C-alpha cells in the first residue's frame, strides 16, 4: 500500500472500480455538493473534486475534499498547474495530507482564456508531468522539488489523466507510459464516446503491459440532451463525439433515457476490455443519475473496500 486510501484498496482488490465526480460550488453554498456526494455514497468508491474546472472560479478542491473527509467519504482532489506555482502546490498538498486527503489527481487544466477570468495570468510554472514526478519525489524521496528535505511522512495516492482522443494518437500511449514513469498509480481517461478509438488505444496499452503498471479507469459522461452533446463536441477541449452518436441521440424520442443508455452501454463495453480497471463517471450537472447508471450497468451493490 502506498497511501492506504479506499481507492487504492479498491484498485488493489482487482474488482471493477467506480469513481464519481463533483464540481465545487460557484459560490459560497456547499450544501448542494454535499447533497450530490451523499446521493452517490453507496455507488462510488471515491469522488474527484475538480479544481476550478474549465478555468471557472469555484470553491477550492482541497476545501471540498476536506468536506468529504468530514462526511466519511473519499475525495480525489484534482490539482491543476494553471493557477499555482510549485511553492503553492507543494504547500497545498501538504495541507491536504494534514486534513486526511489521500488521493491526488494531477493535470494541466484548461487554459484560463476559457473561464470567467480570461484576463488572469496563467501560472504554468510546472507541467502536469513535473507535478506527478514532484509529488512522487516528495513522497518517496522525501524531497521537495527544490531539493530540501520533506519532514515527516507525506503520503498520497497519485493519479493522472490521459486523453486517447487527443493527437498525435500514436504518442498518447507514450505519454501514458511517461506519466506512469513519473509516478501515476492510476489513470482516468477523458470521456469515452469513440469506443473504437479507445479500444485501439487499449490494444497499444496492453502491448506494452502498461495496464499492469497502473490502473486505467475509463471516463464516462452521460449526455443529458442533444444540446449538451453538441456543446461537448464543439466546445470542450479534448472531447470527441462521433457524429453517429449525436445522430442516435437526435433520433431518440426520450433524449435523457437515450443518453443514459449510451453511458450504460459504454460501461458494459469497458467492463469487457482487458486492462480497464474501472470506470470514472463524470455526470457534472446531472449527478443524481449516477446511482441509476451504476445499478443498470450491473455494478451494484459495490463491494466493501
Amino acid at each position, binding site marked *: 500500500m502506498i497511501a492506504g486510501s479506499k481507492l487504492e484498496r479498491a484498485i488493489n482488490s482487482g474488482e471493477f472500480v467506480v469513481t464519481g465526480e463533483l464540481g465545487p460550488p460557484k459560490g459560497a453554498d456547499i450544501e448542494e455538493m454535499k447533497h450530490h456526494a451523499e446521493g452517490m455514497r453507496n455507488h462510488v468508491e471515491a469522488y474527484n473534486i475538480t479544481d476550478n474546472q474549465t478555468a471557472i472560479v469555484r470553491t477550492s478542491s482541497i476545501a471540498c475534499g476536506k468536506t468529504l473527509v468530514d462526511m466519511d467519504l473519499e475525495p480525489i482532489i484534482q490539482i491543476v498547474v494553471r493557477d499555482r506555482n510549485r511553492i503553492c502546490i507543494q504547500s497545498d498538498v501538504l495541507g491536504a495530507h494534514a486534513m486526511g486527503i489521500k488521493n491526488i489527481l494531477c493535470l494541466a487544466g484548461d487554459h484560463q482564456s476559457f473561464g470567467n477570468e480570461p484576463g488572469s495570468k496563467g501560472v504554468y510554472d510546472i507541467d502536469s508531468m513535473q507535478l506527478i514526478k514532484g509529488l512522487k519525489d516528495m513522497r518517496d524521496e522525501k524531497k521537495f522539488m527544490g531539493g530540501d528535505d520533506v519532514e515527516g511522512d507525506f503520503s498520497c495516492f497519485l493519479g493522472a489523466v490521459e486523453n486517447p482522443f487527443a493527437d498525435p494518437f500514436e504518442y498518447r500511449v507514450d505519454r501514458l507510459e511517461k506519466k506512469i514513469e513519473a509516478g501515476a498509480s492510476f489513470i482516468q481517461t*477523458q470521456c469515452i464516446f469513440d469506443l473504437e478509438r479507445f479500444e485501439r488505444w487499449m490494444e497499444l496499452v496492453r502491448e506494452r503491459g502498461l495496464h499492469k503498471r497502473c490502473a486505467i479507469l475509463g471516463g464516462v459522461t452521460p449526455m443529458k440532451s442533444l444540446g449538451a452533446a453538441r456543446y461537448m463536441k464543439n466546445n470542450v477541449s479534448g472531447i470527441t463525439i462521433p457524429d453517429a452518436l449525436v445522430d442516435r441521440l437526435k433520433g431518440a424520442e426520450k433524449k435523457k433515457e437515450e443518453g443514459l443508455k449510451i453511458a450504460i452501454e459504454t460501461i458494459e463495453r469497458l467492463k469487457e476490455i482487458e486492462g480497464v480497471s474501472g470506470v470514472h463517471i463524470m455526470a457534472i450537472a446531472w449527478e443524481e443519475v449516477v446511482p441509476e447508471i451504476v445499478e443498470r450497468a450491473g455494478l451494484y451493490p459495490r463491494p466493501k473496500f
Partner: protein
Amino acid sequence: MIIAERKPLEEIAAMAAPFKKVCVVGCNTCVAVCMAGGQKEAEETAALLRIHRKKANVEGEVEVFSIERQCEYEMIDEYLEKLKSYDLIVSLACGVGVQTVVDHVPSLRVVPGLNTTSMGYPTEQGVWKENCLGCGDCVLHLTMGICPITRCCKSILNGPCGGSAEGKCELGKDVDCAWQLIHDRLAAFGRVGELAEIQPPKDWSTSHHGGARTTVREDVRIDRGE
C-alpha cells in the same frame, strides 16, 4: 525582431491633449520593419493627430522626426536639443526605446504611441508571429528549433497535452500545437524517442520571473578612468 502596433489614435490624442508643443518621434529599426513606428508611420500619426486636435479645438503644434534607434544613448544624443524643445514626445519606439529615452533624458515627458507585443517574425505581409519570450535558458536544441515556452500556451516541457487535436491547440483552430510540431520534427529526424525523457521543472529565475534582468559582459566592458 521586436513587433509592435500603433495605439488607437483616440488614446494617443488623449495623452497629448494637455500639451501644446508635441512631437511624434519614430524609431527606424525593428518597429519600422514591422510598419508600426518608422518615419513613415510617424508622419502618418502626426498628420492624423493634427486633424484630430484641430477638430477637438486643441491648440498647439504637432511635429515629427525619427531617431535611428531610440534604444541607444548615442543615437538619442544626436537629437538631444531638439527633443528638449517639445512639451511632449509621443514615442513610436517599442517599450525599450521609450524607456531608454526617459532614462537618458529624465527632463522629457514621453508617452508611448505603440503597444509592444512580442519578439517575432513576419510570416507574410501584415502577419507577425511571436516565437521567443527571452526566458534566458534556451531549450531549442531539445525541441527541434520550436520553442514550447513561447509557442505552447501552457509553456509545458513535456507535451503535447490532452488539449491537442488535429495539430491545433485547445485555444482554437488558428493556433498550431507547438508540441505537435515538435513531435513531427523529432519523428522526421528519428528522434521521437527523446520525448520519453521527463524534462524537469524549468528554472525560471533566468527569465523575467527573476525580476528585470541586467546582462553584464565583463569581456566587452570598457574600463573607464584607468
